[in-house]
């Protein structure tokens, strides 16, 4: 909201500069700034009146203007088509410097000397864009420095009022804050209240939605432009002057914060107003020129035939004040905030009036603002108050709060005496009476935010200043009820991935439906009110986000893309934390020393498997098993799942060839991993006391037997009772259709027996090996010749 610095001085006397006031308000909880005045750089820019406009002798599109500052005459070349005799315009004289750095010197334009430049708003730094020169109001006299002419010696202060402080949405409200801070009295405009017949036809049918409605009839008004002082103040605050009646309602709104509305009495059917709900299907022609469909949840002010205003939001086109208006019915009312808010949202109309009503207006201001406007209308439009009616549907009971000043020390660590508390609260408009050790505080009707003791404590420290609160060090008492928190599996996995060269991604939680379809993924949740397609669904997997990152990085020429992400995904079963890995490209960076290495250099299934085993299987009883039903995007023959005791923890493998990139992907349920993570410290296993015995085993196996079956058979072959552990390392795989047969594959394994209790003899080792071979033969696996 824009406020006028000089206007504030109507209510409280102070010498502080505009920027001092802005700072003071900021430290009272009302963020305020003085917009950096573009005028600071308008040296030698004055107001001037255009006397005459001639065509430039040598250029079609230029004109030669003659201007005066009241004393001298200047001849200036101008290129704007909108220049005309009689206008008051900003004129940059020779020696002027404009915000963009443009310096005005003597210049000849197409052979004609120009003694300055008529400026546009863009050239003055007032707007980004402007068409033609700036034309000032006629009320501005020529020959004044432009900055002074535009400001009228006043300064605009921009303020942001918190939602709980509708009382501060006015000059009087802001002045009250300043007065309290300066401990000075505040004086508000005198309202002359007359006793007058209540001969106004106003009926409230919805007492809940409209607790108070005052209507005043003022006759014989002359609708005319407002006086300059009022027009200037409105403009200072960003409002366009319209006519005296409308301007007065706006002026009182800005002054006292209470919205008013003036109806043209003669346009009201039956000269009567009813506060009622809209009828289903009722239509309303608003002042903004649009037609709105109304619903019966909406409150309207209607005459005998139709709605003439949407309560507290906008007036009707038919009963608005116009040049021909002779009598007005002035509304000053109270409407239920939630109702105004809902209607405003439904209709998509937000006005200065609805903004205030939905935050809450004051019982007293409804009356005072009405009188203030009546006084001004009588004074400025020649009208006469003929009748006034104040309809109330409830009795106003001021909020009373018991304040224990000792509680301030308890909550804030700042002591307040009763006297200091009383002084501050009184300045804010409260009625304070002692009640034992406490104070009984009657809250003024405009302070809707003061409901309980803590609200008053905030007022005390807000006015006194937060700088008075000490900075105290709280005793550090670590919460050890739950014991030392183990490092999360998530963080262990993240650290291991980073050490393997993977960088961490953070993606949005949303997905486009189209990108989900690409991976045959179904969203579990759609957003009801997305701003764009990007926000239309919640991600059911981390894949679409990582895929987007892959495409971006691949487009930037990265040949190796290693990413992981942990984040919440949203599935039909609920939201859960997920961890995903995406790998593409060379396992190792290109390096000069790679010669005839036969190892694959790009990420394939076995690399991602190795990564997953190194991250998750070390120290945990997690196993990689075949995946009978992988997610649709996985290569069915090159993917697997990670399990713990039969619980699926996630799946991984290569994406299908249709994605046209050799990409390895993995995604895991973090909470399932957390639950199954081995938290036991490892138990020390004694180092080999007896020498290990090594044997190599070459076998010929049918291709359709999975290697895991072979290795499990080998491991299970040594009875536990023997106290010998067997480790088995796959050394070589060999296929040869001619020599071995197309359905056979040969494996060479290095077996190592680690005896725990005695030295193994050759004979024992031979027996163990024979046992293994016998077990393998049951699977039609033979020794390779």
């Amino acid at each position, binding site marked *: 909201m824009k406020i006028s610095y000089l206007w504030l001085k109507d209510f409280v006397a102070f010498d502080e500069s505009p920027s001092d006031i802005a700072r003071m308000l900021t*430290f009272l*909880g009302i963020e305020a700034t003085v917009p*950096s005045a573009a005028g600071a750089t308008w040296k030698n820019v004055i107001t001037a009146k255009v006397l005459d406009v001639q065509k430039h002798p040598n250029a079609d599109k230029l004109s030669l203007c003659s201007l005066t500052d009241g004393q001298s005459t200047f001849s200036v070349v101008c290129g704007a088509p909108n220049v005309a005799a009689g206008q008051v315009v900003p004129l940059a004289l020779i020696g002027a410097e404009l915000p963009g750095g443009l310096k005005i010197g003597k210049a000849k334009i197409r052979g004609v000397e120009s003694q300055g430049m008529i400026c546009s708003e863009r050239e003055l730094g007032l707007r980004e864009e402007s068409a033609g020169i700036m034309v000032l109001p006629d009320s501005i006299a020529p020959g004044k420095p432009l900055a002074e002419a535009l400001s009228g010696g006043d300064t605009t202060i921009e303020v942001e009022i918190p*939602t*709980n*402080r509708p009382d501060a949405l006015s000059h009087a409200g802001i002045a009250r804050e300043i007065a309290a801070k300066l401990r000075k009295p505040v004086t508000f405009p005198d309202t002359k209240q007359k006793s007058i017949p209540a001969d106004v036809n106003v009926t409230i049918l919805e007492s809940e939605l409209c607790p108070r409605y005052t209507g005043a009839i003022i006759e014989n008004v002359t609708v005319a432009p407002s006086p300059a002082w009022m027009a200037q103040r409105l403009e200072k605050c960003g409002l366009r002057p319209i006519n005296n009646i409308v301007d007065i309602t706006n002026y009182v709104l800005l002054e006292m914060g209470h919205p008013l509305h003036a109806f043209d009495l003669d346009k009201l059917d039956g000269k009567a107003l009813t506060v009622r709900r809209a009828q289903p299907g009722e239509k309303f022609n608003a002042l903004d020129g649009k037609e709105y469909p109304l619903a019966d949840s909406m409150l309207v002010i209607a005459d005998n035939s139709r709605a003439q205003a949407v309560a507290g939001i906008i007036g009707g086109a038919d009963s608005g004040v116009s040049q021909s208006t002779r009598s007005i019915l002035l509304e000053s009312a109270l409407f239920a905030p939630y109702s105004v*808010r809902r209607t405003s949202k439904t209709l998509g109309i937000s006005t200065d009036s609805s903004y205030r009503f*939905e*935050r809450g207006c004051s019982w007293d201001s409804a009356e005072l603002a009405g009188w203030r406007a009546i006084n001004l209308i009588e004074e400025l439009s020649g009208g006469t108050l003929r009748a006034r009616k104040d309809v109330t549907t409830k009795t106003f009971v001021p909020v009373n709060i018991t304040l224990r000043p000792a509680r301030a020390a*308890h*909550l*804030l*660590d700042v002591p307040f005496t009763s006297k200091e508390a009383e002084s501050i609260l009184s300045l804010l408009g409260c009625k304070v009476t002692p009640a034992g050790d406490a104070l009984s505080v009657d809250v003024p009707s405009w302070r809707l935010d003061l409901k309980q003791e*803590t*609200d008053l*404590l905030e007022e005390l*420290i*807000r006015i006194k200043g*937060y*700088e008075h*609160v*000490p*900075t*105290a060090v*709280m005793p*550090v*008492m670590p*919460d050890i009820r*739950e014991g030392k*928190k183990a490092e999360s599996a998530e963080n262990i996995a*993240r650290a291991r991935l*980073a*050490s*393997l*060269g*993977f*960088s*961490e*991604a*953070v993606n*949005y*939680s949303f997905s486009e439906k189209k990108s989900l379809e690409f991976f045959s993924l179904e969203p579990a949740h*759609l*957003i*009801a*009110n*997305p*701003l764009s397609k990007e*926000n239309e669904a*919640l991600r059911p997997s981390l894949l679409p986000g990582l895929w987007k*990152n892959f495409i*971006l*990085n691949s487009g*930037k020429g990265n040949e190796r893309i*290693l990413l992981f992400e942990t*984040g919440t995904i949203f599935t039909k079963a609920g*939201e859960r934390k997920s961890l995903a890995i995406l790998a593409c490209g060379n396992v190792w960076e290109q*390096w*000069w*020393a790679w010669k005839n290495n036969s190892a694959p250099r790009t990420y394939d299934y076995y690399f991602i498997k190795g990564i997953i085993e190194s991250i998750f299987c070390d120290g945990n009883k997690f196993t990689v098993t075949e995946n009978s039903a992988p997610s649709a995007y996985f290569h069915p023959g090159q993917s697997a799942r990670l399990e713990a005791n039969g619980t699926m923890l996630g799946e991984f493998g290569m994406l299908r060839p249709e994605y046209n990139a050799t990409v390895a992907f993995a995604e895991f349920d973090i909470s399932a991993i957390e639950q199954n993570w081995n938290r036991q410290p490892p138990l020390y296993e004694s180092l080999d006391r007896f020498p290990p015995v090594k044997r190599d085993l070459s076998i010929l196996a049918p291709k359709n037997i999975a290697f895991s079956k072979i290795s499990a058979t080998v491991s299970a072959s040594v009875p536990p009772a023997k106290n010998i552990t067997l480790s088995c390392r796959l050394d070589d795989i060999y296929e040869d259709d001619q020599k071995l047969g197309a359905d056979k594959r040969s494996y060479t394994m290095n077996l190592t027996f680690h005896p725990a209790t005695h030295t193994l003899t050759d004979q024992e080792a031979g027996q163990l090996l024979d046992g293994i071979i016998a077990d393998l033969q049951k699977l039609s696996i033979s020794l390779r010749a």
Partner: protein
Amino acid sequence: MLETLIEIGRQARHSIEEAGDIETLEKVRVTVLGRKGHLTEILRGLAGLPIEQRKSTGEQANVLREELERMIADKTATLKRKSIGEKLAADRIDTTLPGFPFSRGRFHPLRQTLEEISSIFVSLGFSVAEGPELETDWYNFEALNIPPDHPARDNQDTFYLAGDKRLLRTHTSPVQVHVMEKQNPPLKVIVPGRVFRNEATDATHSAIFHQVEGLAVDERITFSYLKGILTLFVHRFFGANVDLRFRPSHFQFTEPSAEVDIQCTICKGAGCRICKGTGWLEMLGCGMVHPNVFKAVNYDPEKYTGFAFGIGVERFAMFKYGVDDIRLFYENNLKFLEQF
């Protein structure tokens, strides 16, 4: 006999000196000192000699043997040194060729910032809690003293689920309520997490961002403790010489509420484009827990007081790393990620 010894000695010395490698030297040793070596045979034949001759020849033969053994040992050492030197020379590589390019992955700068913030509070005795991202209206708004139709809801444009009453939480504050429902005071907890606002994304706004919420409740928690803990935190994060200030603000769930500004990290308070000439940066919101929030979780507001604060992780990360566009955090360009 003596002549023979002298001749053996002369030839042996010569051969030892001439030997160019270990193998040749070994042959020399075998020829002279081996089982059938010339000198060995003389020593073996001593028994058949007359007594005086045996004595003098024996002495001289033994002197010669010791001399030759010493010479061979010395020569062996010399040859070994020479052979290792040759091997070293032959194995010399260009050590200036590039080393193996092991790659190093990076943690995301937002996660690094979030963890730095969390670790400071953990060191100050706070425990860590998390909560759901899909919330009910009660936890996100009502329990936090934001009733339906309250204008404060305008500040938090909300994403609602289609066909579901839930919404995406607009702040981490609902976790305050979850924690207090489960646990009785005293408590000191922080809540790191992701939050959602239904607003257009630009260089400084994101529909998704991260917060670290803080909450402390006990019988004697004061505003001065809040100032103390946040001052410690800001000094640990930005440096002990960074000034900060508290000014009144409004949040529905705290009373009194405060906004914390820190001295601009770019211009050190002189005023610049980043701080809009004020010399201060708005960093976080905080306040004393509103009694209505305590009532919503059945805490006695007469007995307990508490403070709460909310830190915007993106904002801290932007100032920490000098990132000027919030969207960079969510693009995951490796050229960006690998800088952290």
